[in-house]
């Protein structure tokens, strides 16, 4: 514990940098292995829109030059890396000529908001329920109800989202069907807008929570069983400590440690996991952006979104590495 040593920080930073660099390189290589020519796709789209295109070869050549596809690979790579550093992923081919970074900047806050809220709720609910499944003083009802609720975990997110929509939006009409905020609300830092956002975000968040809390609950259950058998839990009881105090300070506090690492790793994965949920609720976040980009073969957007996902995962792992010694005294920086 205590201050973070400089060499440890440097070490972690270098790891962070290398991870992101290698990932960025892979993102660049993979589309180039594909036989699809982005310039042809654009031309195809123009042709589909206008019926015919005159000077097709000329336009193709211009597009290639414009996108830098004629340059030697190494030049393309160096340019790419230089641009990626400043989050410049070029122009979207599907929403030409919008900048990819602008698309991401528009979508990211929505996803971050929805995702961070829903995975934080899931993390707390899941772990707490998992812990209560093991705690000997939990009410019987809790011990029966939680495993029953786990059924939802086995439902794919698309189905659970549709189910929730059908019940709460179509039948009960409690929540809106689509969108991230109301049609007649002006976006801005107003209470009305915030209300609308929460109102619209509730169902997508709930559908994510419902299908993912089981992951945490089951993991926590296993960890809690181990902790329950530990000698320190027995001694805590023999010390006459209050049962709730034992649950929090002796059991959950120890069992949660591996879950925190898993939490950091999940952050990046969740954008990907959120794709269909956002699509179904027509929620304009990163997931929907990625979904549309894949359908449109919009490579720059796919690259940009993937890069952001990787960056977020790497950053969250970096942060956990730094704070871990604060939550587990057995781990020390630099050891």
């Amino acid at each position, binding site marked *: 514990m205590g201050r973070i040593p400089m060499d440890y920080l440097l070490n972690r930073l270098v790891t962070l940098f290398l991870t992101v660099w290698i990932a960025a390189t892979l993102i660049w290589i993979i589309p180039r292995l594909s036989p699809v020519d982005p310039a042809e796709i654009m031309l195809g789209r123009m042709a589909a829109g206008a019926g015919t295109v005159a000077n097709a070869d000329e336009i193709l050549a211009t597009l290639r030059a414009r996108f830098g596809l004629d340059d030697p690979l190494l030049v393309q790579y160096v340019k790419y890396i230089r641009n990626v550093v400043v989050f410049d992923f070029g122009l979207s081919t599907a929403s030409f000529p919008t900048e990819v970074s602008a698309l991401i900047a528009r979508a990211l806050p929505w996803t971050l908001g929805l995702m961070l809220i829903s995975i934080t709720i899931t993390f707390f609910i899941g772990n707490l329920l998992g812990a209560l499944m093991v705690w*000997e003083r939990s009410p019987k009802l809790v011990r029966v109800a939680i495993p029953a609720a786990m059924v939802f975990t086995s439902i794919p997110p698309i189905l659970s989202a549709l189910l929730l929509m059908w019940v709460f939006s179509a039948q009960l009409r409690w929540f809106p069907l689509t969108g991230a905020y109301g049609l007649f609300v002006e976006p801005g830092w107003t209470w009305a807008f915030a209300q609308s956002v929460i109102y619209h975000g509730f169902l997508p968040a709930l559908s994510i929570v419902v299908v993912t809390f089981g992951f945490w609950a089951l993991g926590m259950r296993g960890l809690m069983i181990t902790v329950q058998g*530990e*000698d*320190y839990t*027995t*001694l*805590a*009881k*023999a*010390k*006459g*400590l*209050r*049962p709730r*105090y034992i649950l929090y*300070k*002796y059991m959950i*506090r*120890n069992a949660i440690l591996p879950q925190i690492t898993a939490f950091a790793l999940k952050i990046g994965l969740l954008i990907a996991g959120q794709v269909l949920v956002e699509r179904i609720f027509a929620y304009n976040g990163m997931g929907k952006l990625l979904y549309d980009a894949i359908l449109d073969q919009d490579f720059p957007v796919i690259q940009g979104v993937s890069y952001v996902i990787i960056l977020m995962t790497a950053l969250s792992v970096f942060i956990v590495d730094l704070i871990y010694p604060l*939550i*587990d*005294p*057995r781990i020390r920086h630099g050891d």
Partner: protein
Amino acid sequence: MTILDIKNVSIDFPTSGGIVHAVSDFTMSVPQGRRIGFIGESGSGKTTTALAAMRMLASPGFVANGEIHLNSLGQTNVLNLNDEEMRRVRLKKISYIPQGAMNSLNPIMRVEDQIWDGIIAHEGHVEKVELQRRSDAVLESVGLPKTVGQLYPHELSGGMKQRVCIAIGVCLEPDLIVADEPTSALDVITQRQVMQTLRDVQAKIGAGLILIGHDMGLMAQSVDDLAVMKLGHLVEFGTVKQIIENPQHEYTKQLISSVPLVGGESFIESSPEIMRGAPGPLLQFDNVTKRYGSVTALHPLSFSLDGEVPKIISVVGQSGSGKSTMGSLMLGFNPPTEGTVTFRGKDINRMSAGEALDFRKDVQAVFQDPYACFNPFYRVDHALKFPFKKFGLAKSEAHTQSAMEEACVAVGLDPALVLRRYPHQLSGGQRQRLIVARALMLSPKLLIADEPVSMVDASLRATILKNIHDLKDKYGISILYITHDLATAYHVSDYVMVLYHGRVVEAGPPKEVIGDPQHPYTQLLIDSIPWPDLNRDWGSAEQGQKGLEALQGNAAVNQTVFRGEVPGFELRVGA
């Protein structure tokens, strides 16, 4: 004055195979300030009885019959208290000092926090200054500096952790302390210090003490009265003097006689004919040194063990003395920092794949924990069959089967009873014997046995050591016996090396080294053994501490005392 009355208590465990009567009709009173030992083998009900008084029985166990009265609560039966009332009894009236001191402290809380939370749970809000004063005082009373309070459990040694547990157990000055094998994980020197500490603080606060254990020697040196338990029954109760000097029950006699003593009668029968191996050096250390970072685990050491006449070489010492490091160097799990380890003239860390395979077959190991050595998903015969087939020794299924049966018989097990069982269905002693049988099936030349009997019951230790000794006589296998138990080393070995801080400080035949130690460290080790003999005083904790301190400041301690040689084993210490 009586502080605890246990009347006609029976404890049952409902299982799928019917009700198990763990304790039957147990009656006993604990007078104030008196120390009572509960002795018996695993499964005898000694821990279960003590835990029943704290209402801490493991599920699904329950008290089927009887009453438990705690004098300071008036005539209330402890068994009738509600959960909250019971919670207030724990630690305040009856405190518990657990067996596994290694894991008994919460790893993410500082030591003082774990003393404070106990105080707060029983006294409500207490000023920080007062808490600090009390934790400092109680740590000092168990011989720990108060700075220990600021540390986390992983920063403490095993002996220190056990003292912290004692500090927690006495901080509220309870009527009764239940100590469940508090020293079984500690080496003899630390054991003596911890046990003396426990006795001192217990006497100071005037509490009663129930000491649960299986070591007759430790009991003789620690308690006033002794309760002998077998299969849930109290078979004998009396003063420790009466029980040890004049045991009445057959089982008590057996428990006392099964304790191996230095200089006592040998439990080993040597065969008239000893099978011989191939001549020539079997295992050699050539200037082997092992360092972990700046810590030297093993100082330069050379030896050569000849394979013609099989021998048992014992390596003894405290935990941290480097004996297990030596074992892992011999097995090639860990390369030496300097020097070479050779088996039959080949460097074991530079073998080709084929040679390495032969080496693995020829050098087998038996480890301490018989519970962790089996894959719980397979029947035990799988563990026996697998290496036998893997090393190409099996000619047919029938051959494998007969080899397994033969090996089981060699270690005194009935193959029909054990082979088709799952590990959890067997006792620790049975499992450890199966590990020996497994090693035997591969006809090894060398067996590394690292604390093979320290986790099995006392009465079985002798049997398993006899099995191991037989491997030497009947199968011509040389054995390296790594242990902290000097009495067994005295009986089974041909040669003994005493390790202290990675150095061999005394070496020679056991009759000399252990029977008449010359090096101050060996002397300290021998003095620390608790004897089941009331006329032999264990000495005080201060003596032990002084002995250790004298060793630390003395450069001459690093000089090896050679006490004689045995043919076929040459030892050289230093580069």
